């Protein structure tokens, strides 16, 4: 008897909604393989363990729901720093608005240009880290992305890259449904900063695969755009070599649905990974999910997860963070903190911290808290003459600041803090 499968049907419907991938030469096999994998795993479903707190139906619906365009009056993110600017409009690379894709110690191509080559170094990476990242937790929307995306950047950092690569994702069509896939290779001793900002599209699905060789460094700061109706799912797959560094930070304000998946594998000794996030949500229409999976598979590696969410008026924040320490990963130092600050009684913070440890000489700690603003602290500030709403904002910012501190670059951190401050001020009555 055939097993009735809603999942399978959804996967087929999803696949049918995007152009069949052809003509990608070296990537064809990978993309066909991704289609087959997606068919096997099915589309995500809210009965799946890792979608328990976040209903993926808006991410799998065909066609994607439209999202009203949002008039953002803030100056564009990262515009004050010297950077290599790359613009994608509704998920499509826009050369007219972008700088020349060239820089010192870095080779940058668009994914579609890379696809048109007969052979390419990215063959070993494209879809490979995504495939690795499917075990033990499946991420079908990343697989869909590998199968159908032909937009994105392929970046090869061969040394210290002085100018950050800053991608701006512009949302310009109410019905855009975008897939963007970046492949980044950081060579031994190389170092690169990768910035992303903007909503991207009405529905936006991104995958970043980053392979960091020994002593390499990868710094990532992302802001996800203030469009209220956007739906976003992102995936970051990182593999870290010996003594390499990976740091990623995401700021999210507004947005009806955001799911940020980060999958990190520490494969070389003495590597360091930090993943952080600060998000602020106002209203029942805000649902924000950070799902992190860090695998320690080498000796003496350190990982940090620092997530802070400020929620009000029925907003929902989700954190699912796991540290897996394999048997040979001795001297692992794993740290995880997730905190929800509720500004009223109507909001939700759902946290699932997980530790799975097979090595016997490790230090892993995790904490998850949810709370309101402390009355005594608020009284202390107001008793000094600071108006209550301003005092509350100071405390919210201080709370988020502990996550923002994880950003290494002070100018970037200050910019993020300013945006959060502005978010707070817009909400003062």
């Amino acid at each position, binding site marked *: 008897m055939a097993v009735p499968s809603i999942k399978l049907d959804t996967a087929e419907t999803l696949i049918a909604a995007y152009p069949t991938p052809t003509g990608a030469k070296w990537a064809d096999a990978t993309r066909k393989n991704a289609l087959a994998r997606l068919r096997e795993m099915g589309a995500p479903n809210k009965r799946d363990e890792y979608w328990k707190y976040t209903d993926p139906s808006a991410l799998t619906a065909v066609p994607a729901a439209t999202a009203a365009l949002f008039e953002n009056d803030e100056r564009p993110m990262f515009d004050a720093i010297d950077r290599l600017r790359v613009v994608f409009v509704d998920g499509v690379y826009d050369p007219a608005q972008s700088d020349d894709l060239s820089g010192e110690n870095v080779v940058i191509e668009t994914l579609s240009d890379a696809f048109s080559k007969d052979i390419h170094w990215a063959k070993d990476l494209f879809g490979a880290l995504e495939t690795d990242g499917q075990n033990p937790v499946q991420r079908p929307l990343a697989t869909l992305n590998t199968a159908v995306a032909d937009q994105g950047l392929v970046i090869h950092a061969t040394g210290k890259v002085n100018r950050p690569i800053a991608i701006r994702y512009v949302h310009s069509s109410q019905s855009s449904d975008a897939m963007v896939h970046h492949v980044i290779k950081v060579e031994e001793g190389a170092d690169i900063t990768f910035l992303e900002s903007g909503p991207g599209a009405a529905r936006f699905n991104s995958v970043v695969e980053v392979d960091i060789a020994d002593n390499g460094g990868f710094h990532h700061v992302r802001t996800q755009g203030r469009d209220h109706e956007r739906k976003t799912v992102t995936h970051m797959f990182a593999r870290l070599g010996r003594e390499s560094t990976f740091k990623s930070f995401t700021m999210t304000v507004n947005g009806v649905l955001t799911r940020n998946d980060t999958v990190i594998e520490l494969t070389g000794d003495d590597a360091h990974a930090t993943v952080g996030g600060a998000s602020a949500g106002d209203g029942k229409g805000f649902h924000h999910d950070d799902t992190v999976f860090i695998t320690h598979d080498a000796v003496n590696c350190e990982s940090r997860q620092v997530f802070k969410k400020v929620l009000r008026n029925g907003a929902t924040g989700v954190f699912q963070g796991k540290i897996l320490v394999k048997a040979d990963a001795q001297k692992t130092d794993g740290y995880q903190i997730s905190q929800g600050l509720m500004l009223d009684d109507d909001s939700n913070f759902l946290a699932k911290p997980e530790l799975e440890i097979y090595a016997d000489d490790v230090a892993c700690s995790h904490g998850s808290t949810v709370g309101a603003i402390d009355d005594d602290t608020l009284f*202390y*500030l*107001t008793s*000094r*003459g600071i*108006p209550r709403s301003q005092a509350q904002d100071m405390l919210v910012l*201080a709370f988020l600041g*502990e996550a923002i501190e994880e950003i290494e670059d002070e100018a970037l951190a200050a910019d993020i803090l300013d945006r959060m401050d502005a978010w707070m001020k817009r909400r003062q009555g």
Partner: protein
Amino acid sequence: MLEIKNLQVDLEEEEKTILKGVDLTIGEGEVHAIMGPNGSGKSTTSYVLSGKDGYEVTGGSATLYGEDLLEMEPEERAAAGLFLAFQYPVEIPGVGNMTFLRTAVNAQRKARGEEELSAGDFLKLVREKAKALKIDADMLKRPVNVGFSGGEKKRNEILQMAMLEPKMCVLDETDSGLDVDAMKLVAEGVNALRDGKRSFLVITHYQRLLDHIKPDVVHIMADGKIVKSGGPELALEVENNGYADILAEVA
């Protein structure tokens, strides 16, 4: 001047009367001390004056230079010139001490319709005042009270007082948890602010603080009322004989 008349206060959460008719008038430039056994209502008086939640005023009044304190929000009371030095200053991770001070100073100036201090002027002022209290640059940079010792916290309270230049300072057991040297430093900070106009209400268990901050009037509080008032010699009497004699005498 501060005028408290027949102030009666209940705890909001439970049916318990804490203040049972407090009368107290502190004139311009005067220093008054309140002493009294635990649970007599000393700290409650300071909280009710500064507007802490959790207390219900059931009768009486409290005015500062004629302004009704009890009708105001805590920040309005501060802008009107009231300052409470906390017995237990709150630690605020993530908020820099300097940012906090500057925000407070400028919020009060704004509330009073005065011009805000520029960053440069503020910095100059805070450095000067901090120096007198032996507060170093590091303490100014650190988050408010985080990792401060007991003495540092109290000195930080006095620094805030010096920066905010209130008309009426209430010190709630500022001597608690201080060694002799730290207490001297705090007392010097307070004395430096005595200018003949600014008034002080010093709440303390012990006479020793009053050796350094000389009061004009000493009040003994018991069971939610001021039961006896007198000169500095009253504090000495408490120090030598405890409260029992005084309480027996007024009972």
